[in-house]
């Protein structure tokens, strides 16, 4: 960029681990940063994970540090429930329109919880991938940032809504809040909109919608989380019992020209982690991992070795061709074991589909994209984290740190 950028502000779109990291790294180099997130809280996908591979540590630990960094850094402005609705201009001088959806709770909220006490109806809990319900006035989760409640739109205009409003001693409930929009002038945009799990209903041969005990890997994370729908116990959705036989199916959508043509990179290791959850909770339980190739790079190979050393885990090189419903409604995984030529039909208490990653949001017009929807642009709008391709957490942060530098370079005056 020859001429000076008109604005020195960096806009980071997406408040997951990628966006948070990009925002902090840039701000700690002195840049003014605006961070917007469409959900009611920062944290994105990682906030909903129980543990990280290979350390089996908790994502909230790193988030806590990053939130502290944000809280103490006046250069970062955070907007939640906000999305980019338009970008015009060019590198160095963008005008961005941001649209917010109503939270019905103002910043005056002290997170005391009186509104939740007043709420009577329940809504599906998005944080738990709708595996459980929450009160219609709720804190997104105990590590939410900002630590602020949200009132579900369903109670607006109802007597319950009024009761909720009345319950708030600081008058932070505003049921008249409307969707709003404002514009920002920024010099560079970091696009860190992350990923969404591939829709398991598209894998019709696996009967996700039909068989209760067929779940996805992201749902498994919630089941294993202390603040999840089962308080950390891995249980069969069908009957709430402990599973004795569990199947983990790799490449559920990934590496498949009918679905996702690319490899999602993380699923193999995530499944080893899931095997560990099960084996930790139920030492007697058997876990079968169905795979095409096990992809455990660099030192992650050590994590694979650990899993292989566990006699309770069986490795079956096979892409299961279908899941049938057994006589008692249990999932029966069918396919061919390619190393033994056996054609199998194995019944399980629980089947976890390792669904892959899909880019979750279209980048703004003009930002270069690859055929899979990942951002590859290197001018003005910079991709960060999984918006640039399937990455694990440390690679996302690596990518976000690089994006932060691109932004810092772009807004240099």
């Amino acid at each position, binding site marked *: 960029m020859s001429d000076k950028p008109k604005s020195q502000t960096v806009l980071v779109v997406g408040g997951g681990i990628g966006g948070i990291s990009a925002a902090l790294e840039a701000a700690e180099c002195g840049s003014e940063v605006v961070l917007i997130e469409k959900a009611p809280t920062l944290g994105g996908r990682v906030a909903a994970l129980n543990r990280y591979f290979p350390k089996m540590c908790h994502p909230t630990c790193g988030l806590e540090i990053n939130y502290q960094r944000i809280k103490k850094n006046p250069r970062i402005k955070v907007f939640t429930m906000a999305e980019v609705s338009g970008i015009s201009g060019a590198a160095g001088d963008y005008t961005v329109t941001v649209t917010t959806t109503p939270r019905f709770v103002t910043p005056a909220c002290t997170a005391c919880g009186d509104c939740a006490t007043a709420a009577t109806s329940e809504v599906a809990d998005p944080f738990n991938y709708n595996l459980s319900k929450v009160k219609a006035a709720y804190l997104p989760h105990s590590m939410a940032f900002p630590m602020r409640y949200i009132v579900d739109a369903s109670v607006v205009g109802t007597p319950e809504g009024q009761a909720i409003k009345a319950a708030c001693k600081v008058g932070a409930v505003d049921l008249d809040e409307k969707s709003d929009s404002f514009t920002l002038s920024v010099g560079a945009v970091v696009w860190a909109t992350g990923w969404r799990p591939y829709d398991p209903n598209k894998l019709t041969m696996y009967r996700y919608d039909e068989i209760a005990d067929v779940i996805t890997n992201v749902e498994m994370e919630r089941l294993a989380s202390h603040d999840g729908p089962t308080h950390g116990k891995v249980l069969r959705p069908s009957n709430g019992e402990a599973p004795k036989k569990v199947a983990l199916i790799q490449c559920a959508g990934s590496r498949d020209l009918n679905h996702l043509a690319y490899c999602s990179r993380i699923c193999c290791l995530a499944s080893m982690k899931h095997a560990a959850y099960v084996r930790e909770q139920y030492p007697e339980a058997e876990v079968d991992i169905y795979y095409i190739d096990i992809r455990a790079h*660099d030192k992650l190979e050590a994590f694979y070795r650990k899993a292989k050393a566990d006699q309770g885990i069986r490795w079956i090189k096979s892409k299961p061709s279908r899941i049938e419903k057994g006589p008692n409604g249990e999932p029966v995984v069918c396919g061919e074991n390619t190393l033994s030529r056996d054609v199998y039909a194995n019944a399980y208490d629980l089947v976890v589909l390792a669904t892959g990653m899909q880019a979750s949001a279209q980048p703004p017009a003009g930002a270069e994209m690859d055929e899979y929807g990942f951002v590859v642009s290197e001018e003005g709008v910079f991709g960060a984290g999984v918006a640039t391709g399937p990455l694990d957490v440390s690679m996302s942060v690596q990518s976000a740190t690089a994006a932060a530098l691109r932004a810092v370079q772009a807004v240099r005056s």
Partner: protein
Amino acid sequence: MEKKIGAYLCSGCGIGEALDVKALEGVVSKEFKKPVKSHECLCGEAGLAVIKADMEAGDVTLPVIGACSPRVMTDRFMLPGMTPIRANLREQVIWSHPAGDEDTQMMAEDNMRMMMTMATKVNQPVPFTEGEFSTTILVVGGGYAGLTAASEASKAGHDVLLVEKKAALGGNAAGYASIVPSKPPYHDPQPNPLPKLIEGVNATKSIRVITGATVAKTSGMPGKFEVELSDGSTHTVGAIILATGFRPYDATKLSHLGYGASPDIVTNVEMEAKLKAGKVTTKAGSSPKAVAFIQCAGSRDPNHLPYCSSVCCSVSLKQAIELTKADPETMVYVIYEEMRTPGTTEEFYRSAQEAGVIFMKGKATKVENGSGITVTVADELLQQDVPLGPLDMVVLATGMVPNSTDPDAPAQEYGAELLTADINPYPAEGDYKPEPSVPPGGPLLNLQYRQGPHLPMLADGFSDSHYICFPYETRRTGIYACGPVRRPMDMGEVHEDAMGAVLKSIQVIRNAAQGHAVHPRVGDLSYPKINLNACTKCRRCTVECPFGAIDENEKDYPVVNPTRCRRCGTCMGACPVRTISFDNYTVEMLSSMVKAVNIPDEDEEKPRILVIACENDAYPALDMAGIAKHQYSPFIRILPVRCLGSMSLLLISDALSSGYDGVILMGCKPGDDYQCHFVKGSAMAKERLSKISETLKSMQLEVERVTMVDASIADGARLPKVIDELVAKIDAVGPNPFKGF
């Protein structure tokens, strides 16, 4: 400016209902003789106005706020002047204990006492900003990673000193005919970006390139590194990027795969050279009609390299594609165990299949060289041994060995704690018991640090971070590794990684010059100050610092390098004579906070247990216990610390001698896969604690009174149970005889 303390109590969020706020006010006004005000919503506009008014009037310079956890409303209570001190009355008192209960009230009052005491002890920190700070970035290694770092750093406005050992720039990448695609189109090999990059670097004035030189010596600290090169020249730089790349695994160790048996059995590096030369021919001079690639040649093999070198699969795909391009009739085989083409590289895999490359899953069990080469493959998909041959060439896909040492430099003593088990990502598993491996060679930077000349590395020899959320975490502040010396990675990732390292360098330069700490205590202005008059030269601080921030001078006295320091306080906790302190964090301060608590008499049957909690994980976990309304014993008193590493044993004896019945230490998991944010703070605390029994014996106290528990941030539900159990256990031992002394 004179420090004026004023307390503000919030009665909102149920505090007013659960506690006797008037009584709390009494604690401040009567016991501390300080002004105190309460409000029904301190964090609201009106509430904040009350505090601001007093501060603007000059009546108060340091507010003590008794309200919610310091983890929330941080921005709103960020007032001009000294950072307010927060007493956690909500999450850790009324949300986790019964309302209107005598013990709950006592807990709240003690919280106020502790925080009021803290207020009297803290001072506004004076940052370290002495002397000149350099903004130049030293890049060590002139390969693709180093060149990228240099060029990106200059684009960000920094002067760069690029040092390359060889006579010419380029490193390994100079030998690449083409590269694996990391940007679309993902289908075909892409041109090597190196030549253009070198051109650019040479043409950039702000980049000074010195080839044929290595780093002889490095001393100093971020913003003030003093670097001496092998050519005798000396330079002052602000930050250092280590981009020394990798060396291919020594193929002579792969005789079992036929290396050396025939000139037509080559490594992927040798094959790349042939491709670059433009024509691949066998020793006999003919172009090969049948070529086999053997994957994992050395990698993923406990006898050679325990890790996966990540790039070998896609490199073989690339070379296979190039071979079929040169001659579509050539039969190319790839013998693999796991085909590892993550992300969009999967498309590159399909591309090689389209080119007709044959993939055989199995192990190459024998490589024989007779009339043509024959590789015996234990083909797992056909479940039979396949004699693959005659082949004209065999390519061994050898892996990466990090240049975390200089193979040509004489080996040097490591520094005792460098490769301790707590950074071993390869804990023994079943038959697999790896030794930490240091690539042969000497130090690259030859750090003149008390803790040794090397940049610390993980047990597999890579100079990588152990943190998932913080890949650029370094145990030598201001020195950042990038590229294959950090982790096996392909060119595309190297580019990203180099940029990341540049960002971190710019960041440390900027923060060092302002006297700010870098991650995780970003912006902390305090740093350890040592009163040498009291120092016993015991060297604990210089050995225990997780970041090697403290050296020793010729008289063996400790010398702090403030910009290396990360403010965890491990040195403070290590010092047996309380002679290390921060402006706003001292053993004396913590000790008086402990003593500020009222210890009821034995007959009141109200034990007091001190909980020393790491403020990064244990403290938030206790907050979350409160948010979830989990209840636990009101007999504990929580003392937050920067890191358990900053806990001095003296704190424990102080607590016990002043009548506490027990002490619980809550810190992050040490050892393998440690979770301490300061690498080994909690490990140090654990080690110190192993010596507590003597102290207790000398005081004739039971060992049960002191326990350390690993606490993670996700333990909100678990900690209340742990606390209640330990309280019961300590209670069972009986009251502390020192009560009332």
